[in-house]
């Protein structure tokens, strides 16, 4: 049983419950702008508040995949993961990196410019805190893709996004079991998150 709390109490709150999460997201949207400034949470901000094209949506997803890749491939090495947790971090990191590559290709193929990789800051220093944040981040990814899916105009890109979101959901469930969290945190129907909500939750992790 993992009892450690995340270093950042606001982030810890995200995963407490749906109700807390919702209220956090409202506060977080304000905090992201007030504390970090809209420029600091770029490139999320332009897409979160004005995405209309498929390229915008793909760039939004790319930012999230950069975040996940960095988390598993860089941050994971600093928190002392062992056993299955280390195994997952290694595998999942490679898969997130593949998502980055696929989205980058898709954006270029659609005539767009991929956003640059942001710099991230993850407020965790223990294996347990890392896994708690991994669970939060993967669930956020599921919500982000499920929210963005119906906005995609290209059915081919929708299929690609679906192929990725299914992997995020699998990651989330596997991590849930490691830390005694529910593998289906929203029950029978996964939540769709708006890009604003995703920005609010992930923005503080972007330097």
């Amino acid at each position: 049983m993992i009892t450690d709390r995340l270093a950042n109490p606001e982030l810890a709150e995200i995963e407490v419950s749906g109700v807390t999460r919702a209220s956090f997201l409202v506060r977080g949207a304000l905090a992201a702008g007030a504390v970090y400034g809209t420029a600091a949470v770029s490139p999320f901000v332009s897409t979160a508040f004005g995405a209309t094209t498929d390229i915008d949506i793909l760039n939004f997803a790319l930012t999230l995949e950069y975040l996940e890749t960095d988390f598993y491939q860089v941050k994971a090495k600093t928190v002392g993961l062992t056993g299955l947790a280390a195994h997952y971090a290694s595998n999942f990191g490679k898969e997130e990196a593949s998502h980055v590559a696929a989205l980058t290709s898709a954006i270029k193929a659609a005539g767009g410019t991929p956003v640059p990789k942001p710099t991230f800051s993850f407020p965790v220093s223990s294996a347990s805190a890392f896994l708690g944040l991994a669970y939060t981040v993967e669930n956020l990814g599921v919500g982000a893709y499920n929210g963005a899916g119906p906005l995609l105009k290209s059915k081919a890109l929708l299929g690609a996004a679906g192929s990725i979101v299914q992997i995020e959901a699998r990651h989330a469930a596997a991590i849930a079991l490691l830390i005694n969290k529910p593998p289906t945190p929203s029950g029978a129907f996964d939540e769709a998150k708006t890009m604003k909500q995703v920005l609010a939750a992930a923005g503080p992790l972007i330097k």
Partner: protein
Amino acid sequence: MTTRLREQEEEETAPQTRGIVEQLVRDDVGRKKFLKAVGSAGAVSFGAFVLAACGSSSSTTPSTSTPTTPASPTPAATPSVPASFGAGDVGILNYALTLEYLETQFYAKVIAAKLYTGAVGSLVAQFGSEEAQHVAAIHATVLKLGGKPAAKPTGKFPITTAAAVAKLAYVVENLGASAYLGQAGYISSPDVLAAALSIHTVEARHAATLATLVPGGHVTPTGAFAKPADSAAVLAAVKPFIA
């Protein structure tokens, strides 16, 4: 439970028993069909897949973000499920409803057999409840769209040992996830699509959970990108489970 999970996960490198899903994956139905359609059969990476996808965008609505869109048949032009399920979104929903009925009956039988206790027993009960909620939601949606809900099939499942049933559950959930993914591009209504997506990832969560209980199970059996399955492949796979 953690120890058990670890032991099983470490068997990931062991040779896989060929299950239905593994066969589907090896057949690589969706990708091969797709690549054949766009004439780039040599492309194997997902990057190439996406590139090809963009180049042959078959969106039924003009896309502002994929300017290079050659004329090609739209998905809507070819029904993605047998006509017996109905047309358009109703047909897709009835297809999904049929699969959800089978999943619900499967879990009901597993629960009745009392094969699992403790944490695993709780998960199985929860997953069964979630499949039943999918049935209710899809049934209601078909009615809302003015369609006639598909008849409930009678499932028949080999409920034997805890290990064998866990493996079957793993196969069934992976099949369900790939079935939803296979339909995503054919759904017309944004609301129906949103609902399908929200169910799709729950099936994936179930599959990943079960993967940790099955020797040789994989959380992500197809790597970084989940594979879709078309209705012909899925219906053939579930046929042995329909009485």
